[in-house]
């Protein structure tokens, strides 16, 4: 793992016909870092995450995950993935869902599963079938599934959509704790205030990485007072006056 990069892409492109969903992205995320992918809907965040997982084949460019070339089924056992919609088995209860994904990744650790279920505050509902859960509870179950096998790398696609502010704060406290223990996180979002909590940010628009850096750096570069303002200015510069 050269220079400690957990995720490394070089000139990564994914074209769907005339649509350039990911268009020349060079990403480098270090171990223990929380990297925020920021951008409007349709900017290519989800496509980028799916490329990293090997769920899509890139049009060109290379990807290395945990030091291995993607696609590589074996390394997926060390990667946790939270999809945008809470993809869960409706008939199974919370614990069964968590246990299933842990097992598919080759790990079953009861104590850890309990901890994960506690973390998302679902101990009381761990026996409830998912179909009886509200949107927020599903989202929490979904996060628990992504953590179930103690992954070293987490790819979270808009993990806090539909989560109330209090739980969102809990999630972020926990993300920080994971990062502290050496877990690397890539979190996509279109909520700017969330972005402030990331170690480093990448602004994405129309498949391109407009800018990268810490929240403070990005604000400074454009002399903006908020991240949102900075983003708009980067976007305007990127398309020479085009609108966002």
């Amino acid at each position: 793992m050269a220079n400690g990069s957990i995720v490394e892409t070089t000139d990564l492109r994914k074209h769907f016909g005339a649509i350039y969903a990911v268009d020349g992205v060079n990403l480098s995320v270090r171990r223990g870092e929380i990297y925020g992918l920021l951008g409007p809907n349709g900017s290519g965040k989800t496509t980028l995450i799916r490329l990293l997982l090997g769920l899509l084949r890139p049009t060109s460019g290379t990807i290395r995950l945990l030091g291995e070339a993607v696609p590589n089924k074996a390394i997926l056992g060390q990667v946790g993935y939270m999809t945008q919609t809470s993809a869960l088995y409706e008939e199974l209860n919370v614990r069964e869902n968590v246990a299933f994904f842990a097992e598919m990744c080759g790990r079953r650790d009861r104590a850890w599963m309990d901890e994960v279920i506690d973390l998302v505050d679902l101990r009381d509902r761990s026996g409830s079938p998912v179909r009886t859960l509200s949107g927020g509870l599903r989202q929490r179950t979904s996060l628990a599934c992504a953590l179930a096998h103690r992954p070293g790398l987490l790819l979270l696609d808009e993990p806090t959509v539909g989560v109330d502010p209090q739980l969102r704060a809990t999630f972020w406290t926990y993300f920080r704790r994971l990062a502290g223990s050496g877990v690397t996180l890539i979190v996509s979002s279109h909520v700017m205030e969330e972005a402030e909590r990331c170690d480093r940010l990448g602004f994405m628009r129309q498949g391109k990485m407009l800018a990268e850096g810490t929240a403070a750096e990005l604000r400074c570069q454009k002399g903006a007072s908020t991240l949102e303002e900075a983003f708009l200015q980067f976007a305007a510069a990127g398309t020479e006056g085009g609108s966002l």
Partner: protein
Amino acid sequence: MNSRRILTLALRVIQQVLRDRRTVALIVFAPLLILTLGAILFRAKPAAIPLGVVNEDQGITSPVGGTINLGQRIADELAVGDTFAVVVLSRNEVDDSLSDGSLQGAIVFPEDFTAQFLKDRQAVLDLRLEGSNPARSMAISAQVTQAAMRTLAGLAGMAMGAAPSAQAGEGKLPVTLQATYLFGGEEFDTMDYVAPVYVAFLAMFFVFLLACVAFLRERSQGTMERLAATPATRAEIVLGYMLGLGLFAVIQVTVILFFTVWVLGIHHLGSLGLMLLVIVLLAIVGVDMGILASAFARNEFQVLQFIPLVIIPQVLLAGTFFAVPDLPAYLRPFAYFMPLYYANQALRDVMLKGWGLAEIWPNLAILAGFIGVLVVLSALMMRREVA
């Protein structure tokens, strides 16, 4: 290939299906209901056909005394047995009775029926049919002709001068049938011929639907995407499903088969275990067809659209009700691409002919081949969503 992951997947599939009680009930009891109805219908004696008789025949005076009225004799012959419910009526009531459905047919004997027969040695039967159901029309025509032939056979020599005997109505046909059966026997009815394949078809059909919907849901609820992001390979996912749903197929087939044999009393000459094996193999083909088909469906309604496309043609062309050699030559080749055809053959061989593994193994091998091909195709089709 990781057997532990396959097993985990299979257990999850089993758990999911078990949570859905109604589906479990459907899989097990719906075939029993359909089979029972089938048995009742195939075995039911058809109701007597209402047949009108208009007898204006005057007859002739016999040389040995009394009158000979052939119209009346044929009418009496028709009334024997329970094929027809004979109704006597007059000529002008016939059309109304046929059109309001109270009669399916009517036979009219004119005034000179007997006289004309003796003169020409040829009877012309004036049969009027309701006619909307061709099969029924044919049955009535055949039965009426036979009754007339039985009646008139004893009179054959009459015109040549011999006196008609008083028992002419009980005249015998010059042919007596003495049939011997290589397979089956007189105690076998249509249900015995249809039941084996009926069972096989039902087993395949229900697991096909189950597999298709289960796999479709995996995609529509997004868990396939998540599963794809685990180390599980496409082949493992297909095999996991096959194993999990295969278990339900085994349970279902066992219940159906034992019900068919012991409750419905279907005859079987060969081994029950071998029959079970054939049907389970076919059911697993059904699971794999379902998984493959789900790749082409976007929602549950589109799954239903596979019934006329994938299921009904198999019922029609694979020898379930219509024997394959009876199909037009250009349709016959399709049967050879249908797994149901091979299962049907194997099952009839075992149930009706009492054949064993030594004779039917080629059919089993072909079914196994279908499973292999379908697993590979299903795994390849998943490439669209699982890289």
